[in-house]
């Protein structure tokens, strides 16, 4: 019962959303008008060629950018401004370099007036969750890329957001860290299950993580195809993202889906030449 309610609260509805940019060469259409419904607690991964409007879509959803026309509803409410209910994780981590790990994670709670005792409990929990005990007083510069991105994820999760927006969060990490962080993200995500909008260039990442994969066309961005990895998982009772990554990528069904998604993305890149 409470699960359903929570789901509705986190539902994300796009109604005729369209985005144009003014440039020296005239008006450029970044996103063709589209409507779309994301269920609460869904893990959505968006793939598509560079410049297809993925980041624009993310910014509109966060409330940082207003769409040219149309609207986005979160739990039935129109999104008009950014806020802690719509957390963002950036590709370049964007931690506050002058704040320690602890202060970075505490920042959002503090400026939103959460009492000190609650703050301490939440931050300590978050640091434990990302496995960075002992690094509380470190500055971001003193951490590896993977650790920095963990802090950024904790900084977002500690606000208990309704939606989590991730803009190629692991693109700056090396392959090994990337794989670890994908597994880590699934583990952390399951503690709260916010609705996730995750942008990536990695088809493999998309296939591993997503409830639904949205393949976007090249500019102006349109939804080209939507795929459900669940439909490809055969005998599995739970989503393969909960299994070890190394085992999953060896599965034939995983590889088939990966190839299918890659063909879709490639056709969008290829058409350009």
């Amino acid at each position: 019962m409470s699960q359903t309610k929570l789901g509705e609260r986190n539902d994300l509805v796009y109604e005729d959303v369209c985005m144009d940019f003014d440039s020296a060469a005239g008006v450029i259409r970044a996103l063709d008008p589209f409507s779309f419904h994301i269920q609460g607690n869904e893990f959505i991964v968006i793939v598509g060629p560079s410049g297809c409007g993925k980041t624009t879509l993310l910014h509109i959803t966060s409330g940082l950018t207003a769409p040219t026309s149309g609207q986005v509803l979160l739990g039935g409410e129109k999104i008009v401004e950014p806020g802690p209910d719509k957390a963002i994780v950036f590709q370049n981590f964007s931690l506050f370099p002058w704040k320690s790990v602890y202060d970075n994670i505490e920042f959002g709670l503090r400026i939103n007036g959460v009492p000190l005792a609650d703050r301490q409990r939440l931050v300590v929990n978050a640091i434990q969750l990302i496995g960075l005990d002992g690094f509380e007083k470190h500055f971001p510069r003193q951490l590896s890329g993977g650790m920095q991105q963990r802090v950024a994820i904790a900084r977002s999760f500690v606000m208990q957001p309704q939606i989590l927006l991730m803009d190629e969060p692991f693109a700056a990490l090396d392959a090994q860290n990337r794989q670890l962080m994908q597994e880590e993200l699934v583990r952390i995500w399951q503690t709260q299950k916010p609705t996730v909008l995750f942008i990536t260039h990695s088809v493999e990442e998309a296939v591993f993580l997503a409830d639904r994969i949205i393949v976007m066309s090249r500019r102006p961005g349109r939804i080209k195809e939507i795929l459900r990895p669940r439909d490809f998982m055969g005998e599995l009772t739970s989503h393969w993202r909960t299994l070890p990554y190394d085992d999953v990528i060896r599965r034939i069904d995983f590889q088939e889906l990966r190839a299918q998604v890659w063909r879709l993305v490639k056709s969008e890149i290829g058409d350009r030449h």
Partner: protein
Amino acid sequence: MRKRHKLLKNTFALASVMTLISAWWGVTSLGLVRPLILPSPAEVGLGLVDIWHGYLGVPFMNHFKASLSVMILGYLSAAVVGVSIGIGMAWIPSVDRLLSPLVSAIRPIPPPAWIPLTILWFGIDLTAKVFIVFVAAVVPCLLNSYQGIKSVPVDLLNAGRSLGATRKVLLMEIVVPAALPVILGGLRIALGTAWATIVAAELVVSLAGFGFLIMNGYRNLESNIVFCGMLAVAITGFLMNFLFLRLSQKLVPWMPSEK
């Protein structure tokens, strides 16, 4: 390894300074140049003793106090005013539109060019010199603060806004700390400019101060005094810069330290 590197660096530094001093000593003791053009190290040493006890009746500490009090008053007021206006212009578009024409007009005037006008306005007392230091220091403070605020990465702003920061919180907790290294860079440039300008002003007209000392040595054809005055300017400038660097490392502990 680091210790060894430092030792090596110090050895080179010492070698270059020693070479210069021995060349100086060699050239003067061989009588290759006239003492008026280049006084010997010994003469400069005598000059130092002379100045310490009071060259032309003014004790050294009076020169030091004269130059430094002007410096502190002018520099600190320039820092407060310049940084505030720079931040204000970068953060509030209407302030930018209002003040940027004024800044553009004042900016290209080299600080020493203000000296004659300032003497006409304020005479040669403390106010005049403080004003000159202020004018010299305020421009780099303002420009760097402006630039620092404008170049805060947009993702940091977006991160702050998405965590629920109001405009005030954004300014105080994200924009200003993010810009602080650049602002401090401006304050450091201003320190050098202000010091150069006050010495220049004292050269033109003054009753005490290092510039006054240099100019008097020149007028009396005592080049060793000129050297001593320059040495005092150099050492004081070096110490101010050193103190400033120490202080700014305290203010920005998250930055890698500068050498």
